[in-house]
């Protein structure tokens, strides 16, 4: 065993560090954990309890797993899960890919141009959701005066009822997602790209690597932690989103654009079946957790130098 300073063995030093690290670790996370326990954990535990009750503000009744059993036979619940999965699969990977491509494309330009583009992509995030949905409602309007209908009118096609028809409703929502709010993801990717050390690229150039090779062998692996982050958070939020969809299609023709979030919302507030809503929410959470676990397994290995 090597002797370090003052006769302390390395192993002893390591365990001393370990103990000290424990304390520091807990200290650093203390604030976050406190806030988490009070404002997040406590309501979640409450929600779990409520999911096993027929909840009423004055007097709740304990019903065990009845709420969950009811869901297994609920056709609308399964339909909404299917819709949500379709929406997620169509939007999350594509959005992340678009953000990545945009982030890379911004790089060759001078600083002022980079800033301009970054600001432009960031903008939709800045506008409030309500005003954005008003604009998109006009774009998708079924009247010939709606923007999309005017566009396809140039090609001689008939005006479509974008949001009211089953064959176009879901796609309209997906397209709306593709074209808006990449700003945050672009910024995150740019931050990640900035963290790639230049010497990697210099080494690659010595080996005369092409652009695509550089991207494939250097950039993509180096931004993997970021990509994993965007996938996990993207799927979490996509599974829960419903408000914008609801404003646009009100659940779509024949419940074809009804998302799980909307059902939870309706059960909690419209029908005041709070217990049932909590049960649905927990099932949704479990589904998301399983998917996230899979993602961590595929993409989660840490990058060490």
């Amino acid at each position: 065993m090597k002797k370090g300073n003052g006769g302390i063995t390395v192993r002893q030093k390591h365990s001393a560090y370990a103990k000290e690290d424990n304390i520091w670790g807990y200290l650093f996370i203390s604030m976050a954990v406190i806030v988490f326990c009070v404002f997040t954990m406590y309501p979640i535990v409450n929600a779990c309890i409520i999911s096993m009750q027929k909840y009423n503000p004055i007097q709740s009744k304990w019903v065990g797993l009845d709420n969950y059993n009811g869901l297994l036979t609920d056709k609308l619940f399964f339909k909404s899960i299917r819709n949500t999965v379709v929406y997620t699969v169509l939007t999350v990977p594509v959005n992340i890919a678009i953000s990545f491509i945009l982030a890379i494309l911004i790089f060759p330009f001078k600083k002022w141009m980079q800033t301009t583009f970054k600001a432009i992509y960031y903008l939709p995030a800045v506008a409030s959701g309500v005003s954005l949905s008003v604009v998109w409602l006009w774009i998708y309007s079924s009247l010939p005066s709606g923007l999309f209908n005017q566009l396809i009118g140039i090609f001689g096609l008939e005006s479509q009822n974008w949001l009211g028809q089953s064959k176009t409703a879901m796609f309209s929502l997906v397209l709306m997602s593709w074209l808006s709010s990449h700003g945050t993801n672009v910024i995150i990717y740019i931050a990640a790209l900035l963290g790639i050390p230049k010497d990697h690229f210099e080494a690659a150039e010595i080996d005369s690597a092409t652009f695509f090779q550089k991207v494939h062998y250097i950039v993509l692996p180096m931004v993997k932690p970021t990509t994993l982050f965007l996938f996990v958070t993207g799927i979490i939020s996509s599974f829960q989103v419903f408000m914008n969809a609801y404003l646009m299609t009100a659940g779509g023709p024949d419940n074809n654009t009804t998302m799980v979030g909307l059902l939870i919302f309706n059960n909690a507030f419209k029908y005041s079946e709070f217990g049932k809503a909590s049960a649905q929410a927990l099932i949704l959470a479990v589904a998301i957790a399983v998917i996230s676990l899979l993602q961590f397994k595929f993409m989660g290995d840490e990058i060490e130098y």
Partner: protein
Amino acid sequence: MKKHVNLLSLVLVMIMAATMLNGCGKEATPTVNSSAAPSSIAPEEPDTIKALLPPISNQFIERLDKVQAAFHKQYPNLTLVIEAASWNDRIEKLDTQVNAGTPPDIAFLGSELIAKYVNMGVAMNITKYATADMISDYDAAPLKYMKNGDGLYGLPAYMEIHGIGGNKEYMEAAGIDWKKIQTKGWTFEEFDAAVKKGAGVKGANSTSKYGLVFATAGTTTKNFIEIFAKNAGMPSEFNSDIKYVYTSKKFLNVLTSASKLIADGANMNATAGERWNLFLTGQTMFTGKGLATFESSAKANNAKLKAKDGSAVAGSVPVDYVVMPVPTSNGASPAYYSVVDGYVTFRGKTAPTEVHMKNVVKASYFLASGENAAQTNADLFAVNITKTARDAESKYPIEREADNLASVKYLMANAAPARPEIPSDKQAKGTKIMDEVIIPKFQALLAKEISPQTMYDAVYEAAVAAFGKDGIVKD
């Protein structure tokens, strides 16, 4: 960097400390509802009443302070605290508060929601606490809407009848005797014929494109079913034997009439904004649904067109809005769909005291009658439903065509009656079928993806599942 971080943390700590101190100071006065077991409170003791109100009319929010002050002047020991909420979200906020066990004392709601809260046990029956004078001030029909079972759960603010809006110029050019129809009603066949004539009518400044534009997009889908079904011999979701009526062939008839209108040139895909825009730009003869207050909007736009100041709606023409009744079908007598919104009273987890309830009723009555009601209803072009408000009417004159006023009175006289005796759990099931089956399928029907028969079968199936084979109408 270290200096910056230190400064940052210092500022942060200061902000957090400041907010905590601030927070302690700004605590709202706890109301009687949240206190422990209620003991006797003398009637003259100070009491606070909380009300959750949306902007009932465009000018309502501006008047909040004055209303609160006037109430305090009338009852010096009582304070009315009005919480303003946006129209679309107040239900969610109210429901969060209800589920938490601490709802406001009064909330402004549509009367159709009363059943839901009675079901939960949080709606407060005020029959015992309202004085005879208060009750007799109200017209019987709207008051009945605020009842459920034997109890009265609030006081109504106005009764708005949904109709169809007509363009006077086009109707005359198409030879429609609108004056007669306004006070006598018409059948669906007559309406359909008029809609057919409605496309391509030439006016002084414009030509109509559609016979009818009815808003059904997004959250307005419910409107068509509600207002047409009522006049098709189904004035309520349940008949006098408390059986569900949308399984009868009359409902199928309503669905086929929707398809027929589309086939005859009506546009049934518009949003609420579009249906009004198309009316103002002279592109349609009829617009639905039509509310009495649209008349004032049309007049306002006409004035802007006259002033030629460029602020009128682009492409709009002068239009005269005419109130038209919804047509009847199946030979039924008219039962016009009425919306009664009112001030509904609530209780929380702890039962409120008698004295507090009496005070809550005083506040509701203050808001729902006399000057306050007259002023709000004048904003909305709604007819007053209390004697005291009618007395105060002259202070808030509105410019309304006599014909339209006569029509509104005819509509109110033939409004669909309230059915408080329907048990609230059945009402809840009916609402669920409406939301989960009828509305989604109707959206598909409007998109021509399913036939009326398919939709009718789906509704039938859902009704049987909810009410059993004996709980529905079969004909």
